[in-house]
């Protein structure tokens, strides 16, 4: 621990010496690491955001999205963590996704709390979904089912954790629910729900709204503070401890970034997320832009840790060998 703070101190002093260069930042292209493959929500968020973030630094600046998939996002996050805190390497972080391994007591090569948080870009609430053909209309109906089968992506994913937390809070665990995990994406799991592989799933609002519009799925509750259309929140239905269930996408830099540099990046971020052109593009791409500035993002991370840690006993792998 002492050693760690010593290295941080050394880092800081080295940075102090080199900070003269930061007045001219950026002098080359800035890359934003996407810890997932191309095509997904995180990829899309960065690709939409990058040009408008670049605009804040002047005409010639290029902000480059760099896909670094691997190990469920841990590879890209670790890459960021080891990068030089010179502002030229940033990343988009999945919250609470990348905090989960730590909550599950697994070893990871990064510490989210030490990173330099630049701002939260998106935040999504979760729907609790059933097939529209089923006879489940309310949480009570679900609780009265004899057999409960959740469909979800694999162990270590945010969606599985959300499903387990929902099950624990709604008292479904006495029915010993089955979790069919391993679907390649949330969409795959939702198609499984339409098909009848299982009878309940949890999914971020934006991934599932199209199935609700088409009449294939029915949402029986939503997390967060606001009801969506006629779907009531967990709090309204008597389960306020599920309000905080959400999925955030935030931008961060490596630990130990010089304060002036961090301030500059945060300022650019705050301006970029207000850019009407960006908001128009984001709306077209159906992003859920809900910005928080760097400090607020840091606080929301702490909240997120507190929230998930209280459920840590419910989050073990349901299908461990």
């Amino acid at each position, binding site marked *: 621990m002492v050693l760690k703070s010593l290295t941080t101190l050394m880092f800081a002093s080295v940075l102090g010496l080199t900070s003269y260069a930061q007045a001219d930042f950026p002098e080359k292209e800035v890359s934003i690491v996407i810890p997932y*493959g*191309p*095509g*997904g929500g995180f*990829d*899309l968020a960065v*690709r*939409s955001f990058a*040009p408008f973030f670049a605009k804040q630094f002047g005409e010639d600046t290029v902000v480059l999205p760099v*896909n*670094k*998939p*691997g*190990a*469920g996002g841990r*590879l890209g996050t670790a890459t960021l963590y080891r990068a030089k805190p010179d502002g030229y390497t940033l990343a988009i972080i999945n919250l609470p996704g990348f905090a989960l391994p730590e909550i599950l007591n697994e070893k990871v090569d990064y510490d989210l709390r030490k990173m330099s948080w630049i701002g939260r870009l998106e935040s999504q609430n979760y729907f609790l979904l059933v097939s529209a053909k089923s006879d489940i209309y309310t949480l009570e109906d679900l609780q009265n089912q004899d057999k409960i*089968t959740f469909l979800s*992506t*694999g*162990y*270590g994913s945010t969606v599985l954790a959300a499903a387990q937390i929902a099950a624990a809070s709604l008292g479904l665990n006495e029915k010993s629910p*089955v*979790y*069919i*995990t*391993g*679907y*390649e*994406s949330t*969409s*795959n799991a939702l*198609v*499984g729900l*339409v*098909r*009848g*592989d*299982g009878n309940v799933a949890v999914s971020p609002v934006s*991934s599932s709204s*199209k*199935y609700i*519009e*088409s009449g*294939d799925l029915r949402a029986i509750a939503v997390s967060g503070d606001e009801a969506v259309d006629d779907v009531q929140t967990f709090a309204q239905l008597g389960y306020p401890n599920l309000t905080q269930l959400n999925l955030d996408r935030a931008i961060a830099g490596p630990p130990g970034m010089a304060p002036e540099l961090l301030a500059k990046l945060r300022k650019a971020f705050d301006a970029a997320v207000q850019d009407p052109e960006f908001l128009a*593009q984001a709306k*077209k*791409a*159906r992003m859920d832009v809900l910005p928080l500035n760097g400090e607020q993002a840091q606080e929301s991370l702490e909240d997120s840790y507190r929230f998930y840690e209280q459920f840590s006993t419910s989050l073990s*792998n349901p*299908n*461990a*060998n």
Partner: protein
Amino acid sequence: MFDSVIAASIYLGSFENILYLCLGVTVGLVFGTIPGLGGATAIALLLPLTFGMEAEQAMILMGGIMGAVAIGGSISAILLNTPGTAPNAATCFDGYPLTQQGKAGIAIGAAATASALGGIIGLGILVMVIPVAKSIVLLFGPPAFFMMAVLGLTSLVAASDNLLRGLIAACVGLFVAFIGYDEIGGELRYTAGIDYLWDGISLVPILIGLFAIAEMAKLFVKGGTIAQTPTDGDLTRITGTLDGVKAVFKNPKTLLAGSTIGSLVGMVPGVGGTVASFMSYSFTAQFSKNNENFGKGDIRGVIAPEASNNAKDGGSLIPTLAFGIPGSAEMALFLGVLVLHGMTPGPMLLIEREYSIFVLILALLLSTIFGAIIMLSASRYLVKITYIDSSILIPTVISIAMVGAYALHGSIGDVFAAGFFGLLGYLMIRFDYPRITFVIALVLGSLMERSFTQSLLMFQGDWTRFMTEGTSRILFILTVIALLVPILHKLRKYWRAS
């Protein structure tokens, strides 16, 4: 529907849009030819260009790429035994032997024609099934996925010359497929503490090693050139491209079977073109008359997979557009482009945006045709590659292959993997173990395992339900037939002989 088709053709006919299409086709052909680059890289590269475009223009550009990639990929598969993209791997098995016999022109002619016609048939099938698309996608749950993988593996292994060696190669392929993080069990397997292996070894470096590098090793031992120099020494005359074109029309059954399998397998969500082309190859190899020559340079072995890997584009649009579940990295990126342009995939998209979908379909159609024409006219020059002396060819191909392996994910681990599988591939050639069963087992392995575990969770451990319920029951019956056919073939031969 008819109005949309006409409106879409008029839209596509404008000068600017044709230009976008040609740009897409050119990029697609080049990226398809170079192993490791492929359609996903091309789409990622051109994606920022679409920001300022209308949604339909973006689709024309992407359609151009997707239609042409598989055509470009067949060139390297045929000439250098190096699949340009993963779905071209099955083309190597007969395309390359034809090249070695100095018949590269025929193979290229057949591949280009089969690709174009396969693409057209696939899109035709797509248009026909759009109304019932949803129910087709919903037919395939985890049990059906598992049975389909079993069917693919069985039909290929049962058809291999040496059953025991085919089985061994398939088992090794399955073993390699299981390397990495098991998402359901939540455990790391066979990673030996190496971070690179966490996600398993990706398919492209393995294919590059197994085919390109192994082939160059073999060529190095043999010396000389890939193709035998023609007896009269005239290189320009023996291209035979036209014969290849004719061969496709002489084998309409193969073309039709390849295209149909391609587009049907393409429709199955999460499976993708590689499985489609292997399945149609193994089907053709097993059920064609006079099939002794497969794997040694039968033109039908080129027609079937090439028809299939272009036909699959049509089919794979269904799960991508209707459910947002792409079957390949390429489709996943294309999905990103759609979303970026405000077209969120969903059950309603095919109906709500009929016009845009038809623009895409037409762009794909023209793209395969343009791609095929470019390839046919270039074939006489391309064929000359096979007469280059090995001292020049080997270092060039190996450098391109290694760069391709690196370029895919920017990972040096992939380069080592390509090297390792190059060695394994050479040993397999040397000791006569079939690479095809190895590759198909590798491709199907993770799908097979995941869907098996999911099915058992669904069935609460009762595995007999694979054979008694729904779609998987039908696939189970097909698997039994695939096992019996080679035995019946042999018995019939035996009776005839006695």
